[in-house]
């Protein structure tokens, strides 16, 4: 009995240690189901969440700062060092560039409240989503360029990770034109392959 107990607790502590706490998302969506059993890659994936015509963007941690630096230059919004640090901790966001500063001032609890974040603009006049995706991809490219130059990764790894993967996580009830618009934005910058995040089901539906 004692041995079994020991093993059980050893396993228990292992699973607790490895489990990652689920971050509260600013936009919880109900994804549609599919039978495709393929997992999202672990790293190098940016997620675009779409729900109620609002778009949210989540980047991998390693490129957040670089992307914000590029965006700050592009859109002429200056950020302080604290704001950069805060942005790196931010798990996904959905605000206009002009509202980003005030979002970073809020506490993490307040950020996920309803109607605090109203989505990133993606219309043709003010297409900030396009810029975010483009800058994130360039940051990812630069990040791995550097690693490749330093000889830390092989050419093969560079080829796989060099281009940022994009996953679209849409709400099942979202209207098709919104999804289409986001896909078009990706295709406009020659991002022709992306992932659709889905739940799992069997073939009997």
């Amino acid at each position, binding site marked *: 009995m004692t041995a079994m107990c020991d093993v059980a607790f050893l396993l228990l502590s292992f699973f607790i240690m490895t489990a990652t706490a689920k971050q509260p998302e600013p936009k919880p969506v109900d994804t549609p189901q599919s039978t495709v059993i393929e*997992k999202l890659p672990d790293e190098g994936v940016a997620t675009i969440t779409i729900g109620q015509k609002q778009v949210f963007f989540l980047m991998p941690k390693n490129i957040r700062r670089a992307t914000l630096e590029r965006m700050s230059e592009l859109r002429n919004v200056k950020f302080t060092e604290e704001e950069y640090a805060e942005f790196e901790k931010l798990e996904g966001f959905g605000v206009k560039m002009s509202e980003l500063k005030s979002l970073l001032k809020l506490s993490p609890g307040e950020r996920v409240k309803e109607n605090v974040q109203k989505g990133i603009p993606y219309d043709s006049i003010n297409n900030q989503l396009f810029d975010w995706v483009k800058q994130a991809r360039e940051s990812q490219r630069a990040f791995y360029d550097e690693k490749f130059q330093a000889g830390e990764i092989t050419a093969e790894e560079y080829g796989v990770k060099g281009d940022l993967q994009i996953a679209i996580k849409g709400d099942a009830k979202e209207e098709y034109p919104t999804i289409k618009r986001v896909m078009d934005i990706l295709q406009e910058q020659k991002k022709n392959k992306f992932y659709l995040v889905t739940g799992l089901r069997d073939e009997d539906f």
Partner: protein
Amino acid sequence: MAELNTGGDGGKGKKVRSKKSNPGVDLTAMVDLAFLLITFFMLTTTLSKPQAMPLPMPDKEQPDRPDKTKIPEERMMTILIGSNNRILWYMGKFDNPSIPPTEAAFGKNGIRKDLLKNVELGKAYAKQEGKPQQGLVVNIKASDKANYRNLVDILDEMAITKPQLFAIGDMTAGELDLLKQSGLY
């Protein structure tokens, strides 16, 4: 099981000894709880990884490449998604379809049966043409009243029925009219 036998056989003599309390602790409940938690953490950690469907789209920049091979109309199927989870599909050209527009529902008893039939049909045509590796080509066109679930459902059907090729396209005005006339828009 977990008890330790510590009581000596004692009483040879007439002395009555007070029974020693048993130092063994019953661990059953604790182990039960530990295993319950293990199961919970095991399941949640593996299932929390999101499932994803890779979707390759054709390049937009080169609409009329000279080397673009024409797909024979006989093995081209067009699926139009209307409102309220309804589908209209036809085979061949829009003006002169080889199978006229047919309404279908989602699911294994709806569009999947048609798709499986058409996949076979497409393979047969391809064989006649002398290209046995090729098969049915599906063109998916969703209307503005379709929702995201419909799109994923159709893409899922593609993953199940495995036509040679599928693409997501834009609906033409004629096809939109057809949907409206059929009352599916």
